């Protein structure tokens, strides 16, 4: 195979590859052996520690499923609340009026600059001090609040990028046939932008699912990760086994979401009916930083690497990448 980095290989390069493969195999085997040895030395491979996960369903029905349900509940709630909020903020940032555009920009940039854990801690204290939410419900409220504040601002950027990714002719034609600005946004731009944004939104869901675990570890929100702790107490200090199973479940959920997003992105890109503007997973990664570093989706951005995927200028070679947080 060829790529930009190397050509089809001759006999010498192939011999070198075999050598690299052998060296890598030895190093990898040594690492696996070390992992096996240290686990075995501490008795972590003993069958009783792993048995609850392979025989019977008690571990799943008693510990993992209730935790998973809370994880999904928090993630879905956060997404459902953050979407309209983010759409509003994103559209507000595109407003022609300075007194709408600037405050929206400040809010979005502020909440993107702050770690989601700080927002969650703030939420927890807020509900404890100023509301009468029952103390059992507070962690859920706090986790959802933190996730909503952060993700609404990320989604605002996605919405803004999605609208800016549409060809300018769409707005011009809409205004040309006499629609008002609000009508053009509502009838022409938003419906197309929402379709273009779908893969990016699904990718953002991965970030949300991962972030719920912070709430479990710091705010005692009883989600999937904290169920590992509970199980470890019940099944005799099998924390390594429990965390491995929990991690596998996270990978399964998030990997299917990521694959779904890539599939959706490919499908939307191939579709002939639309304007071809698709906002993929990579664009979420760009958006997850601050405006200055990537998703400066303003028209007149000429460097070709703006956070927008427009009109088929970016072909293959990009698969799903979600933001690093």
């Amino acid at each position, binding site marked *: 195979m060829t790529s*930009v980095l190397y050509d089809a290989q001759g006999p010498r390069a192939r011999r070198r590859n075999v050598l690299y493969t052998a060296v890598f195999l030895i190093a990898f085997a040594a690492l696996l052996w070390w992992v096996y040895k240290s686990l075995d030395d501490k008795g972590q491979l003993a069958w009783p520690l792993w048995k609850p996960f392979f025989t019977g369903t008690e571990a799943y029905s008693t510990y993992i499923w209730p935790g998973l349900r809370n994880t999904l509940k928090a993630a879905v709630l956060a997404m459902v609340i953050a979407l309209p909020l983010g759409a509003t903020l994103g559209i507000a940032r595109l407003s022609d009026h300075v007194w709408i555009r600037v405050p929206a920009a400040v809010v979005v940039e502020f909440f993107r600059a702050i770690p989601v854990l700080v927002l969650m801690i703030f939420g927890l204290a807020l509900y404890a001090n100023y509301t009468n939410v029952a103390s059992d419900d507070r962690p859920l409220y706090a986790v959802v609040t933190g996730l909503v504040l952060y993700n609404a601002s990320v989604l605002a950027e996605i919405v803004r990028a999605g609208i800016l990714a549409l060809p300018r002719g769409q707005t011009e034609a809409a205004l040309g046939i006499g629609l008002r600005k609000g009508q053009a946004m509502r009838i022409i731009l938003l419906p197309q932008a929402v379709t273009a944004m779908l893969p990016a939104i699904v990718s953002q869901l991965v970030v949300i*699912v991962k972030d719920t*675990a912070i709430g479990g570890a710091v705010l005692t929100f009883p989600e999937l*990760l904290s169920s590992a702790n509970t199980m470890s107490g019940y099944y005799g200090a099998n924390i390594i086994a429990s*965390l491995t199973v929990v991690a596998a479940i996270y*990978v399964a959920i998030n990997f299917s979401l990521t694959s779904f997003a890539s599939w959706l992105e490919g499908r939307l890109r191939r579709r002939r009916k639309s304007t071809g503007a698709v906002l993929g997973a990579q664009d979420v990664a760009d958006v997850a*930083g601050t405006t200055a570093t990537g998703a400066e989706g303003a028209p007149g951005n000429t460097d070709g690497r703006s956070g927008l995927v427009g009109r088929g200028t970016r072909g293959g070679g990009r698969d799903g990448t979600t933001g690093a947080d």
Partner: protein
Amino acid sequence: MEAREIVFDFLGRYDVLGAFWTTVQLALLSAVGSLIWGTLLAAMRVGPVPLMRGFATAYVNIVRNIPLTVIILFSSLGLYQTLRVTLGAGDKVDTANFRLAVLGLIVYTAAFVCEAIRSGINTVPVGQAEAARAIGLSFTQVLRLVVLPQAFRAAVGPLANVLIALTKNTTVAAAIGVGEAALLMKEMVENEAQLLAISAVIAFGFCCLTLPTGLLLGWLGKKVAVRR
């Protein structure tokens, strides 16, 4: 006492600057470590050896789908408390936790560094390498003179995003008791009454860390990017 002093009097009782210094240390050490490990991963991922490519792809796909919290908790509960891996910290729990947090952040962030570098390489058109080979440059010359300079310049923007995300992710170290800004905030809001003032101080601190990084590196990324 003036009102201002009453509102912010908690600053005298807590070491806010010290906590942010821990945050900065976590971020910088993890940034260096994950840059090295991530670059190695990227080299494996785009290299010609199928086995290494498979390993790097699997690593990236698994690690970026696991929550950072799981990785950090695993390094504390699994590596430290169960397997007694202390990373040379001996009995000093705080030092051990700090180093384990850095380890966890490196393992996690490297996957994103790898993807950022790979996205940089992907921006280089294949025609560049073909033209370089056509004028008779050797393999190392093609990489050194033509492909990698363009790839690194395109990777600055994505890497800046990774660095910002890493700075924010250091707060997850609070889950294993590393005394950084978020843990201090948790302690303060539990003991003090001025919730808004405390949150404002912590939020301001993180804005000071992330916004200039974003502006500076974003400007740099745009400046060095190859116009196509």
